């Protein structure tokens, strides 16, 4: 029997960006909040010995322990889903700060087009442009309504960047200027400008300069130390909940933070939650935490899984297209890139930062004409400089053997002489791509795992083909000795594809028929449950998700505050 604890106003499952933003906003407003986090405690000094490629990148020290739980995957309903036994593709956050401790920090806003994608597409191209198997939806909120929340998130995290003409209007410039335009990025810039594009520096949560945020949190400038993606920042230069939001919440005295606490179920009667059940991951002891408001901030996968395992909300049925929980799971496409090899030039590729990059806006969203194209939306075409660590980066022209003397010669020859023009493409929902519960496999606590049914679609393949021509043209303009372009999108492979941007499953919208939550992330079916994170995205844009999910978290916090006072539906 679970031990029943005293009731609290708010309980949050998961303390990454989403959970910690809610916690800091509510506790600042004087609301007692319990934060439950399945992983370990974490503080900035933990990052002092973090420049270890093996431990943190290849042994995934900071990520979810897959022996406790994983997902199962299959490409279509005809296949048997099997567990992802070790990492290969997306890696999942764990511990205080969640993936916010080891993310890159590329911090974008989505486009005005994204929030009204259905209406705007139909307006420009007619009703028949969106094929019926792609359930594109408006988000139930406009860019203009989102803008103040983006602004708040960017100020909290101190985003460094420059205003881009083609993107949505900004009420304020970025809080800090763009990062260093390094010689590597200048190569891309020169070529892109020659081709008539307008490159801009990628918006970054790696601070370009020292910065103190509105909560009084002071952080140092980025040192371009190159141990950023997959690592924590020992300078606090990278915005991380452990450095920004969590200390603020803790200082109020209103946050009761419990680590090693894995939430397994939401207690509910189908229309209202009464609290959550969680397990102490060390002792196995079970607790019941009653609360006025339950917030799920346990990342896309567990947000969906907790709802399904708790019987809350209507599960999506791909055969009828009805139901919403698990619907519109999206990812991103990152094929279509070109790799550039230089015979006589060396760059300082060992140096870099997680969000150091340059990009062109011309092929994002609906910023180019799709009348004659067989796809919608687009991609960010970009060059980055993360710091090429040696286990992960052994590039050699296609056709080079994967081992032996030639491999050694080529991978060493190009170690400091290889650049890439990459792309990050939008992912639109397809009725056959969804999340539900696995019928066979369970987690360490006996709860069914989440099953992912996903493959790239015709839309994705056409998009990749189109974009690969753009990356190729820029690569050619950059003038290397050899270029390899990957022009086709292969099937989704759970051990190969390396994008970490999973979205959807508990999507927002204006209508309970085709969405699970409203624009305050409040569940239509249970008004005291708020589901926060990229699970709310009805589709995935061609940008990294955290800026948008951060903004939505601020809106959700505002909604929860109002709900505690007024009750009822917030829209």
């Amino acid at each position: 029997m679970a031990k029943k604890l005293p009731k609290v106003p708010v309980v949050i499952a998961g303390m990454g960006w989403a959970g910690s933003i809610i916690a800091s906003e509510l506790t600042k407003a004087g609301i007692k909040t319990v934060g439950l986090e399945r992983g370990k405690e974490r503080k900035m000094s933990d990052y002092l010995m973090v420049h270890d490629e093996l431990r943190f990148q290849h042994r995934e020290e900071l990520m979810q322990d897959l022996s406790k739980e994983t997902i199962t995957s299959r490409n279509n309903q005809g296949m048997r889903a099997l567990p992802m036994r070790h990492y290969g593709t997306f890696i999942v956050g764990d511990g205080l700060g969640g993936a916010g401790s080891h993310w890159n920090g590329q911090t974008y806003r989505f486009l005005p087009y994204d929030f009204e994608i259905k209406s705007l597409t139909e307006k420009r191209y007619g009703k028949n442009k969106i094929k019926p198997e792609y359930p594109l939806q408006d988000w139930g909120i406009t860019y203009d309504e989102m803008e103040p929340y983006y602004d708040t998130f960017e100020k909290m995290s101190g985003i460094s960047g420059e205003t881009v003409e083609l993107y949505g209007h900004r009420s304020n410039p970025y809080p800090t200027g763009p990062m260093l335009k390094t010689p590597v990025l200048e190569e891309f810039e020169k070529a892109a400008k020659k081709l008539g594009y307008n490159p801009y520096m990628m918006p970054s949560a790696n601070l370009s300069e020292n910065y103190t945020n509105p909560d009084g949190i002071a952080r140092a400038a980025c040192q371009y130390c190159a141990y950023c993606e997959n690592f924590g920042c020992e300078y606090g230069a990278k915005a991380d909940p452990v450095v920004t939001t969590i200390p603020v919440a803790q200082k109020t005295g209103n946050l009761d933070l419990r680590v090693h606490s894995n939430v397994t179920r939401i207690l509910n009667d189908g229309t209202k939650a009464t609290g959550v059940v969680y397990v102490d991951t060390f002792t196995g002891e079970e607790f019941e935490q009653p609360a006025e408001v339950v917030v799920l901030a346990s990342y896309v996968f567990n947000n969906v899984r907790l709802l399904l395992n708790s019987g809350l909300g209507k599960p999506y049925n791909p055969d009828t297209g009805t139901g919403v929980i698990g619907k519109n799971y999206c990812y991103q496409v990152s094929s279509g890139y070109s790799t550039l090899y230089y015979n006589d030039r060396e760059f300082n590729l060992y140096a870099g930062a997680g969000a150091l990059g340059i990009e062109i806006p011309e092929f994002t969203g609906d910023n180019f004409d799709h009348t004659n194209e067989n796809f919608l939306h687009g991609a960010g075409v970009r060059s980055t400089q993360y710091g090429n660590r040696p286990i992960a980066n052994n590039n050699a022209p296609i056709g080079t053997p994967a081992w032996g003397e030639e491999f050694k010669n080529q991978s060493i020859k190009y170690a400091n002489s290889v650049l890439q023009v990459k792309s990050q493409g939008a992912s639109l929902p397809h009725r056959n791509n969804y999340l539900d519960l696995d019928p066979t496999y369970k987690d360490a606590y006996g709860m069914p795992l989440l099953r992912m049914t996903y493959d790239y679609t015709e839309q994705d393949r056409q998009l990749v083909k189109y974009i690969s021509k753009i990356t190729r043209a820029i690569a050619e303009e950059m003038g290397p000795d050899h270029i390899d372009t990957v022009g086709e999108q292969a099937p989704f492979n759970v051990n190969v594809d390396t994008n970490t941007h999973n979205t959807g499953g508990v999507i927002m919208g204006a209508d309970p028929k085709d969405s699970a939550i409203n624009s305050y992330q409040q569940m239509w079916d249970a008004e005291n449950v708020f589901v926060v994170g990229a699970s709310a995205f009805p589709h995935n844009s061609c940008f990294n998700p955290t800026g948008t999910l951060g903004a939505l978290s601020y809106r959700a916090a505002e909604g929860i505050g109002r709900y505690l006072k007024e009750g009822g539906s917030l829209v």
Partner: protein
Amino acid sequence: MSDKEKNQVEDRTRRTFLRNSGFALGGIVIGGTVGSLLGTTDTKNESNVNTESGAPVANPNVALMFFYPEEYETTMAAAERIFPKNDLGPGAMELNAGIYIDHQLASQWGVNARDYTDGPFYKPEPTQGEQIKVLRKDLFRLGLKGLDNYSNENYQTNFADLEAAEQDEVLTAFEKGEGPSLSGVSTSDFFKLLRQLTIEGIYADPLYGGNKEMLGWQMRKYPGTYMSYVKEIKSDEFVELDQQSLHSHMGHS
């Protein structure tokens, strides 16, 4: 203990080992793998230099915590073909990739401690990732045995004793999944593990036992780990830095 005393103790230990192992009976020449193994231990792995006296000191980390000596031999031979010594610099053997692999297989990673290991196990589609029930440490051991079995079948000798070109033929067969089934696991899965571990043994921080004296990094002008590259990243010219390992960050807290 002075270095001289230390060396004497080591010599004594080695003599004791030879006696106890029953291979060195006064005057009889030690042949085969054991001989070369002892040779390896003697010369290749003990060249860490004591900076004060300039004399070589032993690195106690160069010892086996997982492999049996013959397995270590086979591993080194195979890893050397993945990343051979040539004009550019040392190969896997000299970089102590074998020691690295030994230590990794003895670690929690060797027993798949952070992998999802619940059954049932089914044959996956190519897009579903490996579904291997056998633990990494066991698969590696089976793979080494498989290399010898395959070599004996086709060349009538153990893998470590083959010519380099023949070793490459064996490894190529394994890469393609040809050769004996390893308790139901394909030789290609073993090959993948071998390749991954070899690359890691060359380029992981020396704290893990490979990348000896950071020579793996030096070959590709990788500086290892510095706290800041603000200056270097702005430079149009390539800036070559001395290698530094994680050890240099000790004591910062």
